[in-house]
């Protein structure tokens, strides 16, 4: 290796290409597109002659409340799902519990394969209607991608790295925290993003068991045959899902351990 190449390589190491610029390039388009779509919807709605029902349904504070409920539901779901699925995934990749993994993923599969609306209605029969029932349904519905990605993410870590870690005297906990989890972060976060988008979408059904959310707009729109209400609800839901997915992408880029690729 020539000394010139050496210094150049050293320079790249000392001043890595700015993380922020790459982040901006990758993640700037989505907010712009979302803003354009929201603006277009707003202009369309304000240009339309609204009747009483529509005007009442599209009041700003009503929209905000519905969106707030929706976000809360999605956020709570995410927190619970991450806690359950990442924790479960870690346990299910420990050598002593590994044999349980197929059973657990089968269970999570059932949760996801059951039609979401059926799941919610079934749960409300047993647990009554309300947001806690909706939450349980959403969690059951979105656990699978996170659980599966946690298991895959940890299992794809090179066994030799784990052996090397144990061989130099790291405890199993240290190997998990310093090697397995950091190297599994990109895969786990990909699962979390999928779960988030699913949760936001499925949360529109929460209104059917009286748990609020943007689904109420859609249902109202369908029942009363008011296109503006239906479209507004649908656009807001999609925008919310995409925003959260975008946020997940940014976070995942920030948390991605350096030295991978």
């Amino acid at each position, binding site marked *: 290796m020539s000394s010139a190449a050496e210094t150049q390589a050293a320079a790249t190491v000392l001043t890595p290409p700015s993380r922020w610029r790459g982040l901006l390039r990758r993640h700037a388009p989505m907010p712009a597109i979302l803003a354009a779509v929201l603006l277009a919807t707003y202009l369309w709605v304000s240009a339309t002659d609204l009747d009483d029902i529509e005007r009442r349904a599209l009041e700003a504070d009503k929209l905000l409340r519905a969106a707030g409920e929706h976000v809360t539901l999605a956020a709570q779901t995410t927190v619970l799902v991450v806690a359950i699925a990442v924790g479960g995934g870690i346990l299910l990749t420990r050598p002593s519990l590994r044999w349980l993994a197929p059973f657990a993923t089968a269970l999570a599969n059932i949760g996801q394969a059951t039609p979401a609306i059926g799941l919610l209605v079934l749960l409300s029969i047993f647990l009554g209607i309300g947001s806690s029932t909706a939450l349980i349904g959403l969690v059951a519905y979105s656990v699978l991608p996170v659980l599966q990605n946690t298991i895959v993410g940890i299992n794809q870590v*090179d066994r*030799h790295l784990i052996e090397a*870690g144990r061989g130099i*005297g*790291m405890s199993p906990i240290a190997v998990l925290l310093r090697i397995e989890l950091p190297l599994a972060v990109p895969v786990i976060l990909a699962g979390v993003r999928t779960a988030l988008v699913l949760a936001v979408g499925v949360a529109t059904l929460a209104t059917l068991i009286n748990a609020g959310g943007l689904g109420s707009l859609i249902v109202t729109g369908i029942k009363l045959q008011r296109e503006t209400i239906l479209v507004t609800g649908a656009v807001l839901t999609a925008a919310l899902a995409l925003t959260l997915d975008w946020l997940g992408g940014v976070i995942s880029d920030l948390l991605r351990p350096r*030295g991978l690729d």
Partner: protein
Amino acid sequence: MSHDVMIDLQQVNKFYRGQKAPVVENMSMTIQQGEIIVLVGPSGCGKTTTMKMINRLIEPSSGRILIDGTDVTALDGNDLRRQIGYVIQQVGLFPHMSVATNVGLVPKMLGWDAKRIEARADELLHLVGLEPAIYRNRLPRQLSGGQQQRVGVARALAADPPVMLMDEPFGATDPMTRDRLQNEFLRLQEQLRKTIVFVTHDFDEAIKMGTRIAVLGERSKIRQFDTPENLLAQPADSTVAQFIGRGARLKQLDLRRVDAITWQDVPLIQLDKPVNGAKRQLDQTEGSSALTVDADNRPLRWVNADDLAARPDALDEAGQTVTTVEPQATLRDALDAMLASRDGAAVVVDEHGRYAGTVTLDGLMQVIHHTPERGEPGSGVPDQRSAVAPAAELTPEQR
């Protein structure tokens, strides 16, 4: 005697549940301080299992393993492993940590302060030939394979462990890099005097690296445990001989140096002497050739009577140029020099290039056919000899 023993395996067994035959059966081995013990054998013979039981990455089923007199099973496994260097073929550098962080992992676990860890990492990088200023902040993927393994060795040395375990450490590198890493490591070992257990399936590597070599068969059964010289000269049985492969004699030449065999003297002719005098000198001596040397006694050319007759006037043009070797050269180098020379002799010169003697094919033959004595020069190996019965039938020509 016992204070020299660093690692003592006593009737160690390893069974796995559900397997009838043990992976390692009744393995006993005593390793002295400062030795490189190479465990060599076909894959699946249990050599890696044996090694991993020493730092308890694999727990022995029965038997005792003592390191420096302490039973390893009495220690906490993690504490034990922090005191034993560990190098694997796949290197196992953590890709998300810088070179310096990787090297400093064990000191950090031992609770050193940050400044000391940093200084130690730099010192070790320097030791393995990587300039700290350039490499300490690099990520593993920014290094070549050879550089990565150097960092792997540095990481294993971080807490200055007395014992190191190396599992085919150079197995994944290309032949040239491997050769260089081996040489560098041997040079390091001369300074460090670690006690090393080294696993490989490459017999040539075993010969090169080992103070003593244990050739293992099924279930880690020791077929022969001896110095490379003795192993090559007297393979205990046909399996060992087969494992050594072809060219055992040639391999022996790699192990011995020119200063370990007897040198012969040849007549010297000073260049400034008149040709007639030289001729007379050549006639008087029984050898057919003489060596011309310059005023400083540096050998120049081989000459014989015919050369002098053909070129009666110019002695400095007569004969054939000499091929020289230094006393530290291996006998293989000497053989090469002999083959290049018309007379089948290589001239030994001292570090200033002055004539010291000559070595001949006859001398080589004597060494090869002479059974090595106990205690090879320079190896410093104690008298612990082969674990196999000395009566094992010896057939030098196995093929």
